[in-house]
């Protein structure tokens, strides 16, 4: 039986290697075809749904950056540099906070302070690379999470 297992094992290894090699070829062909389909979808609306559906399979891939947690004392403010535009700033504490561009950026980015209630979040707006987060509570410390570069 051991001799048979060894003989069959070699055969299975050959099958595994061939399937792996073939799989790599198939992925390469799929990548190539997908790029052509995406290109064609720009002028062919019938392909848009297909390309979008396939594209959804890539969502969530890639290395995910973890958010950094900050604590803000009651009535206090913190300035956070190099936040990632478009990511979420989440108010994970019990205090209401406000978000606005830092003083240096305030003149360039005309925007009112954004209020964020507990357990709520906002996407970091364009231009808010350095933000000033203020805790409006007079008694509670605030906690937030945000992604920084």
């Amino acid at each position: 039986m051991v001799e048979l297992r060894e003989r069959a094992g070699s055969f299975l290894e050959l099958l595994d290697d061939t399937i792996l090699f073939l799989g790599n070829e198939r992925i390469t062909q799929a990548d190539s075809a997908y790029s052509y389909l995406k290109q064609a979808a720009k002028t062919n609306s019938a392909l848009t749904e297909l390309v979008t559906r396939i594209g959804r399979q890539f969502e969530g891939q890639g290395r995910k950056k973890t958010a950094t947690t900050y604590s803000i004392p009651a009535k206090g403010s913190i300035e956070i540099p190099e936040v990632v535009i478009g990511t979420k700033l989440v108010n994970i504490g019990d205090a209401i906070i406000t978000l606005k561009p830092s003083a240096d950026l305030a003149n360039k980015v005309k925007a009112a302070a954004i209020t964020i209630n507990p357990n709520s979040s906002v996407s970091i707006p364009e231009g808010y690379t350095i933000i000033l987060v203020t805790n409006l509570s007079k008694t509670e410390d605030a906690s937030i999470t945000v992604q920084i570069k």
Partner: protein
Amino acid sequence: MSKPNISAVLADADKLTIKTNIDESQALLPFAVTLNPDEQHRLRKTGSKREGYVTDVYNGAIANPGALPANFSLDEWSKDEKLNK
């Protein structure tokens, strides 16, 4: 469930038949490849998610051959898909 003890003899001729069948099966796959560990590591793997991606793109390409350039061989890809099954 307990199994009864095995009490059997595999005749040398039968053992040889099994080995010969395996060898003959292998001979039917002249295109088969053997990879070293480094090659195995470097090649992209078709896990279940990527398998779905390949299948979806393949079906999309088959349904829309006009979206592909003339130098893209759908026939060759179809051969690979069939061989993979």
